[in-house]
């Protein structure tokens, strides 16, 4: 069917997306497209609707109207866990990990096997699981902390752990909401390095405020303002777009 499709095959096509909370349109007739293996950064002032867009894609918020197509699947009608099964992974702004469990257990729970009730009851911690958990723990700098309860990790380590929990799912589209927020300078550098390795072979949507970081990784930048796309294109393009300058500096 790809051959007859009138449009280019995007990995993700967001079209006419609108969500309204009691009349307030947090996202208003938004459209954008993500290619396979593209790194897209969404920037914009506070309240622009950036996080809401990620919430809409991963199913946390239901769209009022519009469509979100992921390959050939319409995501707006799916439940959260079904969207994850399609290959969409989401990292939250504040580290969202299981504090009561160890690093190993946190990663193991994210391993994409035994995801239904009886699968979880029958799940065995075999060599494949162990190897994969250790591999990911190594990537997110936590290989020495496998059996540490997650509650006592530092803020930065918790962020890494959550990134690790996404990586072990091996998502096709990875969505990161301010991955370096609240990190020390050292942690920031390490995270940038980590992101460079994990964004290979997959598409990524990142929300970030750190412009240097954005410049460093973005293939393409989308600037959002008041629930709409204000500007869209390369970093240099948006930086020189008068509308963007107006929004960021004009007030």
């Amino acid at each position: 069917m790809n051959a007859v499709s009138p449009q280019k095959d995007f990995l993700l096509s967001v079209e006419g997306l609108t969500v309204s909370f009691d009349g307030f349109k947090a996202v208003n007739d938004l459209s954008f497209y993500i290619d396979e293996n593209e790194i897209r950064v969404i920037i914009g002032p506070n309240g622009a609707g950036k996080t809401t867009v990620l919430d809409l894609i991963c199913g946390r918020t239901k769209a009022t109207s519009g469509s979100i197509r992921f390959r050939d699947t319409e995501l707006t009608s799916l439940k959260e866990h079904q969207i994850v099964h399609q290959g969409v992974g989401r990292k939250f702004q504040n580290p969202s990990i299981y504090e009561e469990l160890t690093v190993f257990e946190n990663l193991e729970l994210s391993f994409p096997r035994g995801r239904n009730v009886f699968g979880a009851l029958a799940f065995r911690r075999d060599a494949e699981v162990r190897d994969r958990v250790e591999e990911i723990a190594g990537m997110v700098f936590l290989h020495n902390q496998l059996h540490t309860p997650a509650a006592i990790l530092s803020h930065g380590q918790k962020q890494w752990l959550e990134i690790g929990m996404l990586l072990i799912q091996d998502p096709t589209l990875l969505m990161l909401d301010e991955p370096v927020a609240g990190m020390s300078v050292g942690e920031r550098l390490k995270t940038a390095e980590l992101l460079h390795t994990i964004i290979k072979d997959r598409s990524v949507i990142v929300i970030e405020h750190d412009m240097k970081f954005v410049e460093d990784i973005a293939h393409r930048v989308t600037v959002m303002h008041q629930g709409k796309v204000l500007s869209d294109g390369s970093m240099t393009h948006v930086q020189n777009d008068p509308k963007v300058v107006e929004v960021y500096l004009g007030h």
Partner: protein
Amino acid sequence: MNAMSNPFFTRSGWLYLAILAAILLVVFPLALDPFRLNLVGKYLTYAFVALGLVLCWGHGGILSLGQGVFFGLGGYCMAMFLKLEASSPENTAIQSTPGIPDFMDWNQVTALPWWWEPFRSLPFALFAVIAVPVIFAFIIGFAMFTRRVGGVYFAIITQAVAAILTILIIGQQGYTGGVNGITDLRTLLGWDIRTNDAKTILYFVCAGLLIASLLLSQAVHVSKFGRLLIAIRDKEDRVRFSGYNVAAFKIFVFCFAAALAAIGGAMFTLQVGFMSPSFVGIVPSIEMVIFAAVGGRLSLFGAIYGTLLVNYAKTSFSESFPELWLFAMGGLFIAVVMAFPDGIAGLYNRYLAPHIARLLGTMRKRDAEGHSLANPAE
């Protein structure tokens, strides 16, 4: 540390199991007269409920204040079979309609209602003991969890369900025995369950089933399902966005707890010889929560010891200072929540387990494993 594999029990866990089995199957039967042993057997039936609550509430964060509903439904299913057996036409010849339960006759019911009919069969009754409460739990769980009703709302609604069922049972006395319940149960397939010998045998059946239920619960706890429960309690959204259908997991654990409660209810009926709405309603349901809380809401062993302890205290208090019991019970609720939320198991883990571990020469296991516990000496 050997957290790479997930043992069914830690070394001390096996020891606790052995101690529990020794207490239930050897010490109590040898030390107690048949009357007291039967009383302990009655306490143990509540421990089934407490086990379910540990998984559902302690680990999963789902507080049900309606476990008495499932305990009662299990108990009533058993009682209906026993009552029909006790209501043979010969036994009930003096009634205006012989062959139906006495309370129906007293209430001018002249024919056995159709839904009583299948309970003439023991296999059906045993099936219903589990199936009726589980189906009921599934309906409640499905309606609530798929709509993301949780926390205090779930607690209040389960409490309302307990209230509704109690009023219904009491109101429909012609079909249910009303406020007195289903009484005067005599034989199980001709075997008289009222004799001391029968009660002793039933005690062993109950204790055996309880240990089996403990092992089954432990199997759930050590599986990935068990860790997911804790994850759901802590960060429900993260679990959902790791690709799990959270509602299905909650429904399962709620039904599992309901099934355990139902087994407890059926064993209660067998050992005590009747079932009544006073084990269904709001008050018994919330008391069952406190059994689990006193034992330690995270500990399966704790649930059993907590149930025994609270019920023992209740019996002794009610015998000697009945007016003090409610003060003690109320104080227990407040104290267990405010002062020691992890119950006996928490106290044991903090103060006793390290010493015992040193004595055993084992490494102390992480508390979060939650299944280390039990103070056999209480």
